[in-house]
């Protein structure tokens, strides 16, 4: 039998699923004792080049409240042409088109290797993709210019039949009409007035006013044309739109000394949402919001226009001193929900040196599956390349984006769904498999994910409901089916079905099995997601305490130790890394707000709850590579001891890529040795991390901040703040020697953390 590692890897590759436990405890009681819930990370649209979609519709269980899809786990009676649903045990006849099946002639969905299968279902006419640019014009000239160029460039990346629209805003909000010849025409909205969707549509002339025909003139067939005034196929208007973007001016209203520009982001979004809501409900659409600063007026205002009042900090928020926070958040949440209902997603591209109100606005993207990109300026490669990558294409030449996803989770009877954490909203579908116990977005077994990428990953949490006294027969398996309906970027409607099963195990007799089935990486990420989810609504210290308690309980449950003897504490291999993950998680910006602005925290958290396992782990515990003359590049401990003078370090925190030149290396570099032919090897050494970084940069969305620094450089702080401070200015270890570099911090090191953990785990008092 393959190792668990292999099994897990295989499962992930095939189904995009990583469970925290790969043996499931067979009773509710046992399950709760395992501390880490039965849960999984699920990547609905995991790229599967080897999985051609089938061109027919899935076969559903006929029981009204089940509707599970026929899958390899179903028992099939080929003679009677009947299959039994493995979730509700309903016996269903095959549809007539399956008349020819037999043991040797099985449809794909019955074959075990097709535990994940994709169906193409086409109802109705294909709907084009819609891209609505919402552009802030309160930018510096240089920024605006860069943004304009990026936008113009993006037109060439869009599929020709995609509909595109443009809204610009500053003090006012302008919806540009794209169809007209001659004079450029736009509809203008006041930036301070909240309008209902109906009002917006009326003002844009999108509703049919009844008395139009009064003059006795024939009614023009307006509906289609009217919508199209603002949303036009790219191929028809790209010249026009390119010009329009080219002529885009900075917001013309003068900004007095000591004031921020008036930026009506709230109304602009409301107009964008209203426009799409009225014209293209339930159609895949991206609202792409580009902002260069915080909303300063109207609904959704985050900070006033007085420069002397700074934008809220964590300090203000904790002191309940952030005036606009609640109101703005509520406003954007309402917008996000409206947008989500219609399947439109909202991206935020925020490029500003100061905060731009992401804390309040993040829900727009979080709830609708949109992207958030944060940068310093639109005139940076970080933004430019990230933006370009939004339109990246897969091996089939299709966009790596999907729209209007609905994820439904079905479970076998012993299991119920507690909730999901990810870029989704609840669809409030209360089926029989929904648990009362909510974790994350719960109370439903269906979620809407307005926009999906191949890496979009949700954490899904389950509860074992089987009672202790009703044992599951030996060898029984629990099953979970994920049904994801979505609009593919080529406008097809598709359904991807993933059905997985895991064995039940009696925790009392088979605890080793369970322990060894523990996927500590998945568990760390899943627990981290729970923590981050909590952190949104709870005080930071509470969350940390909760995480600590979980960790201690887990160690108590699975550690081997003698009571009150910390030295005797041992963890099995399958859990050995878990405490370390927790240690770094505690220090991560997802849970620590110190040194981060509320916007940054929001940004980090946003990405954390949507990336797949690998990326999430990098975020929790950045990876560090060391380059030296002593051998090929090697991963090293994320520890201050790894910082050595003759090394070049490459750290990837997901958000940042830091290349750090050790003291000696940097002196050599300054001396220019790399330019000398005889030091070719030094040149290569310098080049090696750059190449690796390039590789990482290419694969990553959003583009990480790329930092090239050296010993003593100010930007070295990015590295120093991440590494485990095993040596500090007051550590007991001898410092000043070649064993690394001390960190000036009061943070505890991993060693101290572990010591405490052991002590608490073995303590009999807890």
């Amino acid at each position: 039998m393959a190792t668990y590692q292999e099994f897990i890897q295989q499962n992930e590759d095939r189904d995009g699923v990583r469970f925290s436990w790969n043996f499931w405890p067979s009773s509710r009681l046992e399950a709760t004792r395992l501390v880490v819930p039965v849960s999984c990370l699920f990547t609905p649209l995991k790229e599967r080049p080897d999985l051609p979609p089938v061109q027919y519709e899935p076969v559903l269980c006929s029981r009204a409240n089940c509707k599970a899809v026929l899958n390899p786990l179903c028992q099939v009676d080929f003679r009677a042409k009947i299959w039994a649903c493995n979730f509700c045990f309903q016996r269903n006849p095959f549809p007539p088109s399956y008349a020819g099946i037999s043991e040797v002639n099985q449809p794909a969905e019955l074959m075990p290797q097709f535990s994940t299968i994709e169906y193409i279902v086409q109802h109705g006419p294909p709907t084009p993709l819609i891209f609505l640019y919402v552009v802030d014009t309160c930018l510096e000239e240089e920024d605006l210019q860069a943004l304009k160029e990026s936008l113009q460039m993006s037109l060439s990346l869009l599929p020709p039949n995609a509909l595109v629209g443009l809204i610009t805003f500053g003090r006012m909000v302008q919806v540009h009409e794209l169809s007209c010849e001659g004079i450029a025409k736009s509809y203008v909205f006041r930036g301070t007035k909240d309008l209902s969707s109906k009002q917006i549509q009326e003002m844009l002339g999108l509703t049919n006013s009844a008395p139009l025909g009064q003059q006795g003139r024939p009614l023009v067939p307006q509906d289609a044309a009217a919508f199209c005034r603002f949303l036009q196929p790219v191929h028809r208007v790209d010249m026009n739109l390119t010009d329009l973007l080219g002529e885009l001016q900075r917001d013309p209203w003068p900004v007095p000394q000591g004031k921020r520009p008036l930026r009506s982001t709230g109304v602009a979004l409301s107009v964008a949402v209203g426009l799409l809501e009225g014209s293209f409900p339930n159609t895949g659409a991206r609202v792409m919001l580009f902002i260069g600063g915080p909303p300063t007026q109207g609904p959704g205002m985050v900070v006033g226009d007085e420069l002397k009042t700074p934008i809220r900090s964590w300090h203000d928020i904790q002191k309940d001193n952030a005036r606009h926070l609640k109101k703005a958040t509520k406003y954007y949440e309402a917008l996000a929900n409206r947008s989500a209902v219609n399947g439109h997603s909202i991206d935020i591209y925020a490029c500003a040196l100061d905060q731009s109100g992401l804390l309040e606005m993040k829900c727009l993207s979080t709830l609708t599956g949109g992207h958030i990109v944060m940068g310093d300026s639109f005139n940076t490669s970080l933004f430019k390349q990230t933006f370009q990558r939004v339109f990246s294409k897969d091996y089939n030449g299709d966009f790596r984006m999907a729209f209007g996803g609905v994820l439904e989770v079905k479970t076998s009877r012993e299991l119920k769904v507690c909730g999901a954490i990810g870029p989704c909203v609840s669809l409030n579908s209360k089926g029989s498999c929904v648990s009362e116990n909510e974790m994350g977005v719960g109370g439903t077994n269906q979620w809407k994910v307005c926009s999906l990428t191949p890496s979009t990953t949700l954490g899904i949490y389950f509860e074992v409901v089987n009672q202790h006294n009703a044992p599951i027969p030996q060898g029984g398996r629990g099953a979970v089916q994920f049904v994801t309906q979505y609009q593919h970027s080529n406008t097809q409607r598709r359904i991807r079905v993933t059905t997985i099963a895991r064995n039940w195990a009696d925790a009392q007799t088979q605890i080793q099995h369970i322990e060894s089935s523990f996927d500590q990486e998945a568990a760390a990420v899943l627990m981290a997601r729970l923590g981050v989810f909590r952190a949104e609504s709870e005080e930071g210290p509470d969350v940390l305490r909760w995480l600590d308690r979980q960790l201690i309980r887990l160690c108590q449950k699975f550690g081997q130790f003698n009571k009150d003897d910390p030295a005797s504490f041992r963890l099995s291999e399958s859990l050995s890394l878990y405490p370390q993950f927790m240690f770094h998680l505690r220090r991560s910006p997802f849970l620590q707000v110190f040194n981060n602005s509320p916007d940054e925290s929001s940004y980090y958290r946003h990405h954390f709850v949507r990336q797949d396992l690998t990326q999430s782990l990098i975020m929790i515990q950045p990876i560090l590579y060391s380059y030296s003359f002593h051998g090929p590049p090697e991963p090293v401990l994320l520890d201050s001891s790894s910082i050595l003078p003759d090394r070049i370090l490459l750290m990837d925190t997901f958000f940042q890529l830091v290349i750090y030149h050790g003291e000696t290396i940097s002196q050599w570099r300054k001396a220019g040795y790399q330019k000398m032919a005889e030091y070719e090897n030094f040149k290569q050494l310098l080049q090696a991390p750059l190449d690796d970084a390039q590789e990482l940069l290419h694969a990553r969305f959003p583009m990480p901040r790329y930092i090239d620094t050296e010993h003593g450089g100010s930007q070295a702080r990015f590295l120093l703040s991440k590494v485990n401070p095993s040596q500090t200015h007051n550590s007991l270890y001898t410092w000043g020697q070649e064993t690394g570099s001390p960190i000036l911090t009061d943070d505890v090191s991993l060693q101290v953390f572990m010591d405490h953990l052991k002590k608490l785990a073995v303590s009999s008092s807890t």
Partner: protein
Amino acid sequence: MSQQGYVAAPPYSQAQPGMGGYQGGFGTGPAQPLYGHYGGPPQAFTTPPAGMLKSPASSAAGMPPPPVSSQYSPNVQQNGAHPQSGYEYVMKVLKDSQCLSDNITIPTECCCVLSVAHQPFQTPPPPAMGQPQMLPGSQSLNMSPQMSSSQSPQASMSMTSPQMPGPPMAGVGRPFPGPPPPGPGGFQQPGPPGYPQQAGKSDPFGGHMAGPQPGMPGAFPGAPGSLAGPPQKKLDPDSIPSITQVIEDDQAKQGGQVLTTNIRGQVPPLVTTDFTVQDQGNASPRFIRCTTYCLPCTADLGKQCQVPLASIIKPFASLPKNETPLYVVSHGDTGPIRCNRCKAYMCPYMRFIDGGRRYQCGFCSCVNEVPVFYFQHLDHMGRRVDLYERPELSLGSYEFVATLDYCKNNKPPNPPAYIFMIDVSYNNIKSGLVKLICEELKTLLEKLPRYTQEDARQCSTRSVGFVTYNKVLHFYNVKSALAQPQMMVVSDTAEMFVPLLDGFLVNYQDSRAVIYNLLDQIPDMFADTNESETIFAPVIQAGVEAFKAAECSGKLFIFHSSMPTAEAPGKLKNRDDKKLVNTEKEKILFQPQKGVYEQLSKDCVAQGCCVDLFLFPSQYVDLATMADVPSHTGGSIYKYSNFQVETDGEHFLRDLRKDVQKSIGFDAVMRVRTSTGFRATDFFGAIHMNNTTDIEMAAVDCDKAVTVEFKHDDTLNEENGAFLQCALLYTTINGQRRLRIHNLSLNCSSQLLELYKSCETDSLINFFAKSAYRAILNQPLKNVREILVNQTAHMLACYRKNCASPSAASQLILPDAMKVFPVYMNSLMKTAPMLGSTELSTDDRAHQRLSVMAMGVEDTQLLLYPRLLPLHNMDVSSDILPAPVRCSEERLTDCGMFLLENGHSMFLWLGQAIPPDLIQSIFNVPSLCALPELDNVLSKKVRSIISGLLDKRPNSMKLQIVRQKDKPEMLFRQFLVEDKGLYSGASYMDFLCYVHREIRQLLT
């Protein structure tokens, strides 16, 4: 008799053509029944005040029955009465006939014994056209020179000058030969008989159609002078005071002269007279005119005479080229020197004392220190040595440079901007108006009031902006940097805002190319519009917001077609209810609808946003409401009903060009200060009043006048006289804040005679017109008319009682300065707003009402007495205009060609028998709809006269050509103000009669 013989009474005294001859007239079918009706109510006679009518009954008894048809008998009787009671006047000049006698009476035979005295106006019985007059035998005066051909004999007879009281024209076959016709039925009120014909329309004063008549018969029973002994007097229309004559005389006397304004209480020449003003301490009459230049000393005296005390101030009046423009004075950073107590500005009425160290305010007598920098020694006369170097010490009008204290928010203002707002709904597109405007704007913009050269550097870049609208507004970005203009649609009409600032208001010169591009495209852009709904209030709001955003004042030019019915603030609905006409509720038609527009006016004024409204309606648009904002912001309202480019285009463009080029001040606040003893209490004009003293005007141009009424506070002193100072704070076209000061000194007297001598009729009528037009907002027309007549009678009666030499009660005596007052008053009462006629469009009435409110003296004068120029016999080689003739049909000749204009309308009237060669040379036959440009002297002359007049008037006028007896002649007729009104209203003579009767009642 010299012209002074103005009398008013003549009509009554006029000899009436013989009755016999006219019997036919009476005999006309319709006349009879009605007549009977009128004649019927003898009660009318029973009621008359005793003094005037002595027992008509008895008199009747004494009279032989007139040989006329029986219907006349009542009148006859009545007439008879008068003679008996000795009420006839002898027609002779009572006073000496020197030219300047202050009052002139014409003895008239008229027995204005109108029994209906208590039944004021409705009752006047103007003769109907063609109505034969029943005249006492001896009288040959044509009572009412209407167009009846049958009358002409009389008319011509009456021409025979009144001086010759010769024997009446007997030849006419009158029934009553002999002077004292026993049945002076002659005076036979033509009215009653006339009635039938005109009754169809309505009664003279728009009163009751048939109602008043009870009193009627009595109304003009006056049989001219049979009893008066020398009844031989006959009076023809020429003998009653004639405005044209008065004007001509004044022109002859004072025309071309220099008026130096160094005399207190100096009565200026008439507005129609050409004269040059030399400012020597009092404001030119072009700026301020008063109803009287001698105030009564006490309030009681004022009450007694009932002559209103008012000034008509036209602060921006344009000055002829030969007069010096106003000097601009700067008093440095501290701002103009003002009295500490009353805040009056330094002016010639400040008396320097104490060796020049202090000065006493002429207005409140407060003694103020002279600021050090302003100190100057006094000469031996006690005058400052620098008197003649300082305009503010020696002139009546001048300007101060205002300091920041006088600016909004203590910031210097930005130059005002002009925004053109064009309604592009279906109607305007279809009529071709939009295209016309867009074409015109290209050249028009060049003509915008320019900054003077030296100011050019400091002018900011904003000056014009463009908006089009139908149900939504379209703003245009015409920034010079753009290749193409950009349109920004604002559909949030509930809460208006301006979508952009930079690029909306631009310097025309810089953005010319983009603006041209825009103007070229606008007509095409909306060419296939089918939007017929419009909004209005949000359009104005948008303008206000734009000015607010640009922190400037300015003017909106709105070209609008229809009633705003789209769902938006200020939406209007049709409330044109003809049923209200002639009822208590008629005033509702004139009142603007409450709500949005009221607030909008306030906003406009607060921001200095003047609104000029050009209306192109094809039906009722509720002008009363739509024009509410313009009429409170110093704006003008132009209306072109059923606009067609071919016929009205030029007319409209002329208006537009004039309007754009008017000299104008923005964001103005005016305050009128007076010396102690009286104060300004009421204000009329296109203004807004937030409190009782500050007159706020978003803008004030050279044609806008404010009429200010004064009341006594206290007793005035004859010696000191009375002063008034009008201070206008405003922003110039290039954005400077200035204070324009006009000072005027008046006399005071405890003698009413002095007051009457110093009256000015033109100003009086301006005041009356404005106050009446305001009154109709709150009172039924009937009351207003009654009040006007009563006050007229009262003023005249007071004169008669207190100033005139004793004379027979039956004489109508008019003060010289007021001798033509009744004509104007009568004309005023015949104006559309004052007539309760369903024939007139409600919008037109409201329009006229509002236009008059802002008019100056010149304009009201012309409006109420149009100019009628004979063109057929003029000297084509001379430069001067032909002398105007009186506005009466009898002045027209069949073979003549007349030009009539009143500042709003212009007619070319062609007689039936006009010589073909005349037509040929003017029109080049056969087209009679426009004046072609022909190369002959006559044509040139006519066209030059017309264009000369058009240049002179604030509004352009559309030339309408009417031919005698054609249908459109009716339109023309209504401007013949001496005649009986077209819809109703008395003729001049009838009115005089009526007033006389009133006076006599008052005197008894």
